[in-house]
């Protein structure tokens, strides 16, 4: 028998109240740890995916929208860039590479990026970590497609499978139509990169231009027929377009990814700022430095993030208050126990210490459970985020932060025990030894 036994039994006697207060502390600690973990992890996750791009060009309304659309597949960019403009930009500077991209189609909700093979060979979704194939290889011919790891697993894709794309992306696919005349063959499946690119599919530009050219021609024929007031059914044959038939109106892109030459072992280039300023003078395009835009995004999100953190701190303080209230609420029973302990030889300071130990123990158990919950919750949250938005948020909990949060919870719990401890200390012994009515 020792003082800790007394405290543990005291907690067991008030099992329900003790459990609730422990749960409150655990939830508060878990919430704080998960938020702190996700805050850093989310920032890193957004930095994945922009990879080794120095500049990104689009015709979107703002650089941030451009990055979110072009590299995180938030929406299909609304405004295209003409192929001639791409050529002009490409030839305006000795870029290490200039990769055109086009977004607009989807496969069962997963975005399809039309691009050149250089996207899969030169672009690195995470700097220093190029795309790797789990199965198959890159697209070499028209109507071949390479699937990101998440897209492949979500839709059960395998090499050799034929799939049909839908015009439009995300929610807009409901209003789109299928390019049923041109099935694509899956020729490769990528390994996971932990970026938004995992949920996309990649094909070449020419295939996309061809199917959209055919759509354009079909649409033009329909309008013509309406103009001629045809009154008979017309089994309209879909007109096939060959690559040489493509016009400038068909050859559109929605983004250009640029990388400047750098010194070996360096990711930076002294010319980035100069090229950024030069390109920005062209009012027809939007130029973004992806890393900078993600930094801005995190600054915006950071404010909300602090709000969540503040809420979690409030929950932590509330849990400490709940410990105090639970202990004060049980004061009548506790005073009788205190009176008996005093009669048996416990000093007033000892019963004070027992109350503080009890609240501290609630904090300690709550903090440990909270940390366990946080590790589990973090893993769950990253799984959900990966499934919902396709970015890998590795919710690793920093041990130093965890120690600080847990220590704070324990100290707060100990402080919460002060009022009940003072009440215990001041318990009039004789009065509480009277027979219970």
């Amino acid at each position, binding site marked *: *028998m*020792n003082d800790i*036994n*007394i405290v543990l*039994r*005291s907690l*067991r*006697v008030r099992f329900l109240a003790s459990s609730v207060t422990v749960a409150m502390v655990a939830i508060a600690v878990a919430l704080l740890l998960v938020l702190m973990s996700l805050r850093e992890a989310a920032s890193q996750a957004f930095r994945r995916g922009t990879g080794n791009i120095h500049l990104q060009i689009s015709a979107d309304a703002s650089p941030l929208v451009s990055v979110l659309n072009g590299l995180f597949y938030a929406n299909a960019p609304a405004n295209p860039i003409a192929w001639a403009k791409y050529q002009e930009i490409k030839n305006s500077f000795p870029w290490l590479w200039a990769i055109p991209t086009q977004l607009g189609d989807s496969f069962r909700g997963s975005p399809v990026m039309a691009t050149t093979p250089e996207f899969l060979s030169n672009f690195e979704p995470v700097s220093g970590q190029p795309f790797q194939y789990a199965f198959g290889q890159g697209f070499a011919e028209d109507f071949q497609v390479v699937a990101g790891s998440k897209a492949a697993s979500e839709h059960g894709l395998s090499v050799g499978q034929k799939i049909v794309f839908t015009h439009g992306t995300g929610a807009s696919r409901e209003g789109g139509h299928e390019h049923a005349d041109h099935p694509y063959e899956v020729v490769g499946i990528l390994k996971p990169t932990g970026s938004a690119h995992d949920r996309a599919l990649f094909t070449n530009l020419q295939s996309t231009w061809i199917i959209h050219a055919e759509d354009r021609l079909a649409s033009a024929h329909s309008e013509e027929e309406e103009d001629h007031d045809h009154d008979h059914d017309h089994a309209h044959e879909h007109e096939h377009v060959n690559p040489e038939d493509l016009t400038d109106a068909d050859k559109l892109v929605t983004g250009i990814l640029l990388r400047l030459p750098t010194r070996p072992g360096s990711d930076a280039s002294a010319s980035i700022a100069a090229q950024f300023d030069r390109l920005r003078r062209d009012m027809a395009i939007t130029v973004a430095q992806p890393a900078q835009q993600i930094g801005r995004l995190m600054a915006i999100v950071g404010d909300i993030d602090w709000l969540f953190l503040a809420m979690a701190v409030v929950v932590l303080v509330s849990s400490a208050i709940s410990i105090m209230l639970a202990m004060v609420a049980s004061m009548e029973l506790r005073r*009788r*126990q205190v*009176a*008996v*302990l*005093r*009669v*048996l*030889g*416990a*000093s*007033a*300071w*000892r019963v004070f210490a027992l109350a503080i130990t009890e609240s501290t123990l609630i904090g300690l158990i709550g903090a440990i459970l909270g940390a366990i919950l946080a590790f589990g919750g973090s893993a769950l949250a990253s799984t959900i985020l990966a499934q919902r938005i396709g970015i890998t948020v590795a919710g690793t909990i920093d041990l130093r932060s965890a120690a600080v949060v847990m220590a704070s919870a324990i100290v707060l719990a100990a402080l919460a025990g002060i009022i009940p401890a003072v009440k215990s200390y001041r318990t009039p*012994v*004789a009065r509480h*030894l009277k*027979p*219970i009515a």
Partner: protein
Amino acid sequence: MSKASPPNRDEHPGIQISGLQFAYRRGFQLSIPSFQVATGEQVLLAGSSGSGKSTLLHLIAGIENASSGEIRIRGTNILALQGGQRDLFRGKNIGMIFQTFHLLQGFTALENVMMALMLTGYTPLQQRERAESALNKLAISDPHSPIEMLSVGQQQRVAVARAVAGEPCVVLADEPTASLDPANARVAIDLIQEAARAAGSALIVTSHDPSLREVFTRIVEVSQFAQTEAVR
């Protein structure tokens, strides 16, 4: 930590009260010019309600503070001890038994007894040995039962065991039979007397029960040595 050496029991009387005055909150004062209980003596303290029986026990135990006077337990004036010193002295030298037992819920019978020993500095091994011995003497069949699972009679035995396990100088029993029928009251008082005798403790029992008069050799009416009077 082992228990400090017990005082020499033959050197001083068990309890020696002199010039004691205690002020009630409601404007009355209890005065006890002199009162003594010898070592190992057993006294029945009788008197009407409000005569000051329980107050006297609380004063002897040092859980009430007197306005003036002395209460010496084996030569030590408990009222002169302060804070933790007084608490520890009480735990080591005075065993208390209450009408409603005041056993701690959530603990076993054994743990209730061990706790009293723990609070006065016995080692865990000593706690267990003494508690098991005390419970065994009082015929507690299952010392590992949670206290709330025991019968009222068994609970009373545990309360007695707790009071005498540390072999205190004095055992104070405040209306220990008030909630029992006459037959069980007699059994209980026999138990308390025997346990106090075995522990070598002086015993003071307060009671309204006239049937207990026949089992005590010394019966003291509170009014014989204490006056309660209104004060301005």
